[in-house]
């Protein structure tokens, strides 16, 4: 065996060791590596009322109620993952992308009454990028309701010719 070949084998062995060590560590800390828990996790775990955690999911369709309390804006909505839904209250300014059907992550505590009191709400946007007129066209044709879920498969719309209204919607969008 030449020296080069021996060094190559040493390197491969070390790589295997480092790789499996990393894989083991990541799978051991799996629960701590998630950025947020889902409503169904919350239903299964029953965290204490004082524990601060992040709750993530979609804003349930038709659940958003905006009001005010003592002069502060107060929003009530439900966060759902399709199986369970958790009612959330948040006093503050919601991000621009907040809407029904949007993914959000709320930081706060779960009260004894089962209501999640959020101190901060972040919007999570999905991986689809489409111009406003394409989104409008899909909605008009009844192919997609953004409040209900993700858009149809990309191959059905990503080559759509933009409407002539493109210039007008660009300023507004």
């Amino acid at each position, binding site marked *: 065996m030449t020296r*080069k070949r021996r060094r190559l084998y040493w*390197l491969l062995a070390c790589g295997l060791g480092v790789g499996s060590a990393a894989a083991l560590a*990541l799978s051991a800390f799996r629960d701590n590596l*998630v*950025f947020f828990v*889902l409503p169904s996790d919350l239903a299964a775990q029953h965290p204490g009322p004082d524990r601060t955690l992040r709750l993530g999911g979609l804003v349930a369709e038709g659940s958003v109620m905006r009001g005010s309390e003592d002069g502060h804006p107060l929003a009530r909505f439900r966060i759902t993952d399709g199986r369970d839904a958790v009612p959330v209250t948040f006093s503050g300014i919601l991000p621009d992308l907040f809407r029904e059907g949007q993914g959000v992550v709320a930081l706060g505590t779960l009260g004894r009454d089962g209501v999640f009191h959020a101190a901060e709400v972040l919007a999570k946007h999905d991986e689809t990028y*489409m111009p406003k007129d394409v989104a409008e066209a899909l909605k008009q044709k009844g192919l997609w309701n953004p409040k209900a879920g993700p858009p149809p498969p*990309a191959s059905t719309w*990503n080559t759509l010719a933009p409407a002539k209204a*493109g210039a007008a919607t660009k300023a507004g969008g």
Partner: protein
Amino acid sequence: MTAESSASPGGFEMAPGAAMFRSVDALSSLAAPVPPKAPGRGLHRFANPGRFLRLAGALQPWLTAGGLILTAAGLVWGLVFAPADWQQGDAVRIMYVHVPAAWLASAGYLALAVCSVLSLVWRHPLADLAAAEIGPVGAAFTGICLATGSLWGKPMWGAWWVWDARLTSVLVLFFLYLGHIALIRAFDDPTRGYRAGAILALVGVVNLPIIKFSVDWWNTLHQPATISLTGAPSMYLGMLWPLALTALGYTLVFAALVTARTRAAVMERRIRALLMAAAAREDGAVQVAA
């Protein structure tokens, strides 16, 4: 190390007068860059610095001009003419700066890892130099990715920074680059720096799959990949084309920067070797005179 490096590459010609400086500088043959009679096998063809300089010098203007033109065209297309996103509005245009930088940050680290393997296993002298020069360029692209991502996160997510798996693993990549830059230059004997830097770079490779798959393995605030090998990209084609153009441009700019830096490093070594040879001759002359 000395015996091996001088023995291995076939196309590695030692000028007779420089042979005594092997231990100081493996590339001291640069003092007399004669074309090799028998080219080495495989990648060791490029261990001959004269051949590398000729090839890189010919490539350099194409890489630089192509990179600048494609990047400028892609950015103008993306920032001005591409359609705005239906929900993100014009903020989506940050993508054309951010996403190619993120790709190049990871791809650059992969290049650093390949150089490190060449350096550790085959003791390739140019791989050492290239690894030292990839580091700062990769760190700069990672910095661009982090800064623009932060600027994009505030208006869209509502936060400049969150500690989710994607953002944290890219920050680790940035620190790996910085650590490599520092470590590879931390020794008086450059060879020891190259070895240490190569080992650090290779240990850091475990971070690359973590960056790529963090958005699939764990739930994160960062969205999953838009462009995959298996499905249609969930992006309007009028947005995808400028992104592809910018990505190609960034790649060429990255290559141009690394090539220019490596050429400069090779020439620096040549100058150092010439100066040392001259100093040694003077020493010898003084001793003879005395």
